[in-house]
C-alpha cells in the first residue's frame, strides 16, 4: 500500500480531491455568510430564543373612547390604568373594539402615558382600532410622536400635540396651534384672538394652581386636531395637576363656598365662570381667567366648551353640569372652532 501512495498517479488524484474540497468549502462559506443573521444586541429582558420575561395584562379601552361624550366610562378606564400601573403591572391596551373616538381622549391618554407618576416606570403596548376610519384618526392624531412604535403614519397633518413642563405661559405655542388649525380650516393663517386668550388663560391656570404643594412645574399638554368631515378644529388642554377645586387657593374657595352657601363644586364652577366669586367675597382672587374664557364662548370665538376638573363635568354651552363619580385628577378643557 505504501508503494501505491508514493505513485505519481495517486498524488495527483489526492491533490485534485483537496482542491475540489477547498472550492466546495469556500463556496459554502460565501453562501452561509449571505444567510447569516446580524448579531443581536444584548437585551437584558430577553434570552435568546425565548419570549420577553415581562408579561402584559390586557386593558380594554372603552368602546366610546371620548372624554367629552362618555366621561364616566373613560375616567373609570383611566383610573383602572392608574391602579394597574401602581400594582407594577405592564399593560396591553386593547383598542380593537373601539367604535367611537375623539381626539380629547387621545391627548389625555398621551399625557398620562408620558407621566411617570402614572406609569411608575412600567411598560405598555397596544393595538389600533379595527375600524378603518378610527384607525386613521388614531394614527394621524400625533399619538405616535410620543410612543415608541413601528407604525409610522404617512400623514400626520390631522393632529398636533404639544407638551411643556414649565411654569411659563407660551404665546408662541398658542400661535403655533392656531396656525395649524386655521391653515387647515381656511387654507391660510387667520387670527383667532379668542382661542389665543383661552390657551393663554389655560396655561396661566396650570402655572398658578396645578402643582399645588408639589415641587417643580406641572406639565401641561395642548393639542389641536382637525376634523375634515365636520369642518372643525378641536382644541384640548390638559394638566394632570390637582385640579381647580383642590388648588392652593382651597381656603379661598372654601370661604367663597361658605359665603355663597354653595354646596356643590358644579355650582362653584358656574359662579367662577360668571366672575361672581370675587365680587361676592371681595377677595382679590386671580379669577379673571375663567370668566374671560366664558366670555370667549359667549362671543362665539370658541364653541362647545367643556371643562372637567376634579368631580365636575361641565358642557357650558349646553348648560350641562354634572358631578362625576370618577374624578379627573387635573384640569381638562376642550373647545372647537368651525370653518
Amino acid at each position, binding site marked *: 500500500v505504501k508503494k501505491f501512495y508514493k505513485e505519481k498517479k495517486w498524488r495527483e488524484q489526492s491533490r485534485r480531491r483537496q482542491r475540489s474540497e477547498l472550492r466546495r468549502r469556500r463556496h459554502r462559506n460565501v453562501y452561509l455568510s449571505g444567510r447569516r443573521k446580524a448579531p443581536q444586541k444584548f437585551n437584558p429582558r430577553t434570552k435568546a430564543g425565548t419570549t420577553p420575561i415581562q408579561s402584559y395584562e390586557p386593558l380594554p379601552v372603552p368602546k366610546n373612547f371620548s372624554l367629552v361624550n362618555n366621561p364616566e366610562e373613560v375616567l373609570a378606564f383611566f383610573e383602572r390604568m392608574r391602579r394597574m400601573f401602581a400594582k407594577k403591572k405592564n399593560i396591553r391596551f386593547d383598542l380593537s373594539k373601539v367604535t367611537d373616538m375623539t381626539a380629547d381622549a387621545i391627548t389625555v391618554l398621551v399625557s398620562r402615558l408620558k407621566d411617570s407618576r402614572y406609569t411608575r416606570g412600567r411598560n405598555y403596548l397596544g393595538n389600533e382600532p379595527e375600524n378603518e376610519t378610527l384607525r386613521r384618526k388614531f394614527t394621524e392624531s400625533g399619538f405616535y410622536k410620543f410612543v415608541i412604535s413601528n407604525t409610522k403614519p404617512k400623514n400626520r397633518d390631522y393632529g398636533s400635540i404639544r407638551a411643556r413642563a414649565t411654569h*411659563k*405661559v*407660551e404665546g408662541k405655542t*398658542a*400661535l403655533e396651534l392656531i396656525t395649524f388649525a386655521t391653515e387647515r380650516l381656511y387654507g391660510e393663517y387667520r387670527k383667532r384672538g379668542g382661542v389665543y386668550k383661552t390657551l393663554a388663560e389655560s396655561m*396661566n391656570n396650570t*402655572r398658578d394652581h396645578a402643582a399645588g404643594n408639589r415641587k417643580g412645574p406641572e406639565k401641561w399638554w395642548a393639542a389641536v386636531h382637525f376634523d375634515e368631515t365636520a369642518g372643525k378644529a378641536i382644541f384640548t388642554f390638559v394638566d394632570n395637576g390637582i385640579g381647580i377645586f383642590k388648588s392652593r387657593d382651597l381656603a379661598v374657595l372654601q370661604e367663597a363656598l361658605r359665603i355663597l352657601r354653595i354646596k356643590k363644586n358644579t355650582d362653584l364652577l358656574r359662579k367662577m365662570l360668571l366672575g361672581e366669586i370675587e365680587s361676592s367675597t371681595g377677595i382679590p382672587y386671580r379669577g379673571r381667567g375663567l370668566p374671560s374664557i366664558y366670555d370667549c364662548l359667549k362671543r362665539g370665538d370658541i364653541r362647545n366648551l367643556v371643562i372637567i376638573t376634579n368631580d365636575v363635568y361641565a358642557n357650558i354651552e349646553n348648560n350641562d353640569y354634572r358631578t362625576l363619580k370618577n374624578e379627573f385628577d387635573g384640569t381638562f378643557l376642550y373647545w372647537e372652532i368651525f370653518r
Partner: protein
Amino acid sequence: MTAVATETIYLSVAKEFSLTPGARKREDGEDSGEQFLDECLAPKYREARKQGAVLFVDLDGTGGYGTSFLEESFGGLQRMYPAENILDHIEIKTEDEPYQKADIERYVAEANDK
C-alpha cells in the same frame, strides 16, 4: 394734518414688542405685560405726556392677548400714575378684537382698587 401727526405718538405692540404677548410678570414667561409696560408703554406714555401728545396704542397684528397681559400693562400704568386717568392721554386701536377696549377700560378703572 401735520399738527395731528406731531401730537400723536404711535406704539404698535406687534411691530415694537411681540407678535405673541404672554402673561403678567416676567417670571411667567416671555413677552410679559410687565416687560411691555417697562420697555414700551411707560416710556412712550411719559414721552407723550411731556410733549402734550396722545399715545396711540395699536393692539392689532398680534396672535392675541391674555387678560393678565392687558391688566398688567394698562392697569400697571394706571397704578404708576394713580393721580391721573391714563386713558385721557391714550387712544387704543383694536379692530381685530373690539371688545378689548372695554376690557382695558375696566382694568384701568379697577387698577387702584387692589
